[in-house]
């Protein structure tokens, strides 16, 4: 009964989104305030029905209702409760339902927190979000109904994929989806603005905090995914340039460009068309990501068994969204006024450089991800793009980007006197170049890669400090910090500082972790020891332990250094009872400066095992950097100037859009 209720609620939600997509939007054209006013209640109704539907599916999992096909395939009576809940989004149908729920949530959030928006703009934004919801809900109902019944009812379920039975992965998809779907808000703001023909600084200011929050979720989701892969896949890697990872990385790159371009549009009224295009691009890439994951066209760790009907549906949906929005853009773009002009040395130019580089990287990742499809379709053979290529692309463009990242915040808007800028940068340049050179010297670090990483990270840190010093000097020293922090624009600035600092950690992390990690595959008998960079790993054998729904072979490895115990690691090899799938759980001793990582290979008889041992310096900095980036975004989104926009709306309009002037 309850599953039918869930399905019924899903159908009702689709009805709500159909009305939401049409009526308020139409109301803004025919000037029917009653129609326009429907937008908010409809957003509510859509969300409530989606929540009911989702709750019904969760309930089905909790009570092990195996008469529902989806529950029968992915649920199990033995699953711990946490994983019964996370099993809801452990496979295709449920994860789409979660996607739809999150979309409903974002729609509701916009209707609640964007009260300062003019009624007409809000109605249009919500209508566009309704259109997106139609696409996803009909996809759910017509091709991937999670509430489908099965007869005869199986006595036991098929269980959630053991790989997904991990706390990190339980929350990884929701985070990622919050990001993907959150980009639909930026998209809807852009489409609504295009429909209304009004793209101005106010528009940028409205959509900026939403974009930032979506970007924060996306960042956090990617970091979590990477951390999970490191712990669960048992080979110490944290990024594989897997198509599905790329599918989340591309929208992230585009959204990063968007976040920066929105800043220019808000502050200076420039880059308007470009910003709109980026908003369209970022969301389209989110959809493309869904297509890549769900259609099974690519070889990937994450790919689900494919279903051509689903792939086709998403492809058509993708075409409709991209085609429709580009068409609208083509019609409207000529009407968009030019923004403020700027000189060739100015913050605008540097942010333009940032955008060009980010979009270039997005394009390259896209090429690398789609090339196998293209080659296959053209009959040129079956290929894969080696991940050295992706890495070399990153190494080529990252330094350029970091160079600009250091200069940008120290440069004035509109026009910057080059001599003054150089003077400001001199100290930072000296310190970072000097330290970088030193790190590359044979007697010290003896690695050009390390030298480059040190130079780039220090360049970021020193330029950020230079900027901070300058800012505080203008605000009465360190004492002015708190006041600045609480005031308008302050948190945007400190958020930027934190996020860029995160990049510095990230660069050091990836460089040192990849250049100086040590990996050993060893055959070990119980009691045998292996020495690695001063650490002694003693293998104490493997014993069998029974878990709730798996049987584990639990290894024990004692790590000592200079006779003192450092850690006792327990790498595991689990076999899950139902699916008979083996799973590796690495034993990790985490540290800020280094990780010690052990994973079990296989039993070789006589109690001997093959073991993989890693020493990974600074690997935590990668995720720490990612978290700093996300925290910076969150801080920036909480800037007080995004609240109470109503009162300032008219004032900011005239302040934000400077007269086009002679320069344009």
């Amino acid at each position: 009964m309850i599953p039918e209720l869930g399905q019924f609620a899903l159908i009702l939600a689709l009805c709500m989104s159909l009305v939401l997509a049409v009526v308020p939007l139409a109301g803004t054209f025919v000037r029917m305030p009653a129609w326009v006013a429907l937008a908010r209640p409809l957003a509510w109704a859509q969300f409530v029905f989606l929540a009911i539907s989702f709750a019904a599916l969760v309930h089905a999992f909790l009570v092990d209702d195996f008469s529902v096909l989806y529950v029968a395939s992915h649920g199990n009576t033995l699953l711990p409760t946490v994983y019964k809940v996370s099993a809801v989004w452990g496979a295709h149908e449920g994860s789409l339902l979660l996607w739809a729920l999150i979309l409903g949530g974002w729609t509701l959030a916009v209707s609640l927190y964007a009260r300062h928006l003019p009624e007409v703009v809000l109605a249009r934004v919500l209508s566009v979000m309704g259109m997106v919801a139609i696409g996803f809900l009909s996809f759910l109902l017509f091709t991937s109904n999670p509430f489908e019944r099965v007869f005869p009812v199986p006595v036991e379920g098929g269980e959630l994929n053991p790989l997904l039975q991990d706390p990190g992965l339980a929350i990884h998809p929701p985070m990622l989806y919050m990001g993907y779907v959150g980009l639909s808000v930026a998209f809807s703001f852009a489409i609504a603005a295009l429909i209304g023909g009004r793209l101005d600084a106010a528009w940028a200011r409205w959509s900026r905090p939403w974009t930032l929050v979506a970007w924060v979720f996306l960042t956090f989701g990617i970091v979590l995914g990477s951390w999970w892969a490191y712990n669960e896949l048992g080979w110490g890697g944290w990024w594989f340039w897997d198509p599905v990872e790329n599918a989340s990385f591309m929208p992230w790159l585009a959204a990063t460009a968007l976040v920066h371009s929105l800043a220019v549009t808000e502050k200076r009224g420039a880059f308007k068309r470009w910003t709109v295009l980026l908003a369209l691009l970022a969301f389209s890439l989110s959809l493309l990501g869904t297509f890549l994951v769900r259609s099974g066209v690519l070889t990937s760790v994450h790919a689900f068994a494919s279903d051509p009907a689903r792939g086709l549906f998403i492809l058509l949906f993708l075409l409709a969204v991209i085609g429709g929005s580009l068409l609208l853009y083509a019609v409207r773009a000529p009407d968009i006024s030019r923004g403020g002009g700027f000189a060739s040395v100015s913050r605008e130019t540097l942010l333009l450089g940032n955008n060009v580089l980010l979009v270039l990287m997005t394009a390259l990742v896209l090429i690398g991800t789609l090339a196998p499809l293209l080659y296959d379709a053209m009959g040129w053979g079956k290929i894969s793009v080696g991940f050295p290529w992706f890495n070399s692309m990153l190494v080529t463009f990252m330094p350029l980007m970091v160079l600009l990242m250091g200069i940008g915040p120290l440069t004035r808007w509109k026009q910057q006197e080059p001599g003054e800028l150089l003077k400001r940068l001199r100290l930072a340049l000296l310190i970072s170049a000097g330290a970088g050179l030193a790190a590359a010297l044979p007697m010290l670090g003896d690695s050009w890669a390390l030298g480059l990483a040190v130079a780039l990270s220090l360049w970021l840190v020193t330029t950020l400090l230079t900027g901070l010093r300058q800012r505080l000097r203008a605000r009465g020293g360190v004492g002015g910090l708190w006041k600045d922090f609480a005031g308008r624009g302050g948190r945007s600035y400190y958020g930027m500082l934190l996020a860029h600092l995160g990049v510095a950690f990230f660069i050091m992390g990836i460089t040192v972790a990849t250049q100086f990690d040590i990996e050993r595959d060893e055959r070990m008998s119980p009691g045998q020891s292996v020495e690695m960079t001063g650490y002694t790993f003693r293998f104490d054998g493997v014993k069998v332990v029974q878990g709730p729904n798996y049987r584990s072979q639990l290894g024990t490895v004692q790590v000592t250094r200079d006779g003192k115990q450092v850690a006792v690691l327990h790498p595991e090899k689990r076999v899950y009872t139902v699916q008979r799938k083996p799973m590796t759980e690495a034993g990790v001793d985490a540290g800020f400066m280094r990780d010690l990582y052990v994973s079990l290979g296989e039993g070789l008889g006589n109690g001997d095992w093959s073991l993989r041992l890693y020493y990974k310096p600074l690997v935590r900095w990668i995720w720490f950097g990612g978290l700093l980036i996300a925290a910076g975004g969150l801080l920036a989104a909480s800037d007080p100037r995004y609240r109470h926009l109503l009162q300032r709306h008219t004032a900011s309009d005239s302040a934000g859009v400077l007269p086009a002037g002679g320069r344009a």
Partner: protein
Amino acid sequence: MKTARKKRLYLILLIVAGVGVAAALALNAFNQNLMFFYSPSEVSEGKAPAAHPFRLGGLVTEGSVTRLANGLTTRFEVTDMDKTVSIEYTGILPDLFREGQGIVAHGSLRDDGVFVADEVLAKHDENYMPPEVADALKKTHDEGVAAAAAKEGGS
């Protein structure tokens, strides 16, 4: 204002040139990093490159997995139901590696015809077959003798 316009033109030219150079470099590197996929049949026919690394995929032949004396090197065969190729891999195999499973290995051919893998991938969903492997199997299936096709059909 003419100078400003000129400056902007230079800026645009600079960006276009930069992007152009970058794209050229990227595409050049791209061609060198392409890894082609070959089926065991294609390898047996000598279609696979001798010096260049490539990817080889198929089903692990039942009963073919043996471990060499040092304990870490494994030798096994992959098949597309027509031809088989021996693979040698030193290191820890993925969790889902087992006989009868579809796998993809990355490496290159040694002079004696053994494929030395530096990476072996087995997919995490058992119902999921790497598309390349599925295709290779389908090909042999289609080309195979009718009797053999009937016997091994649906694999």
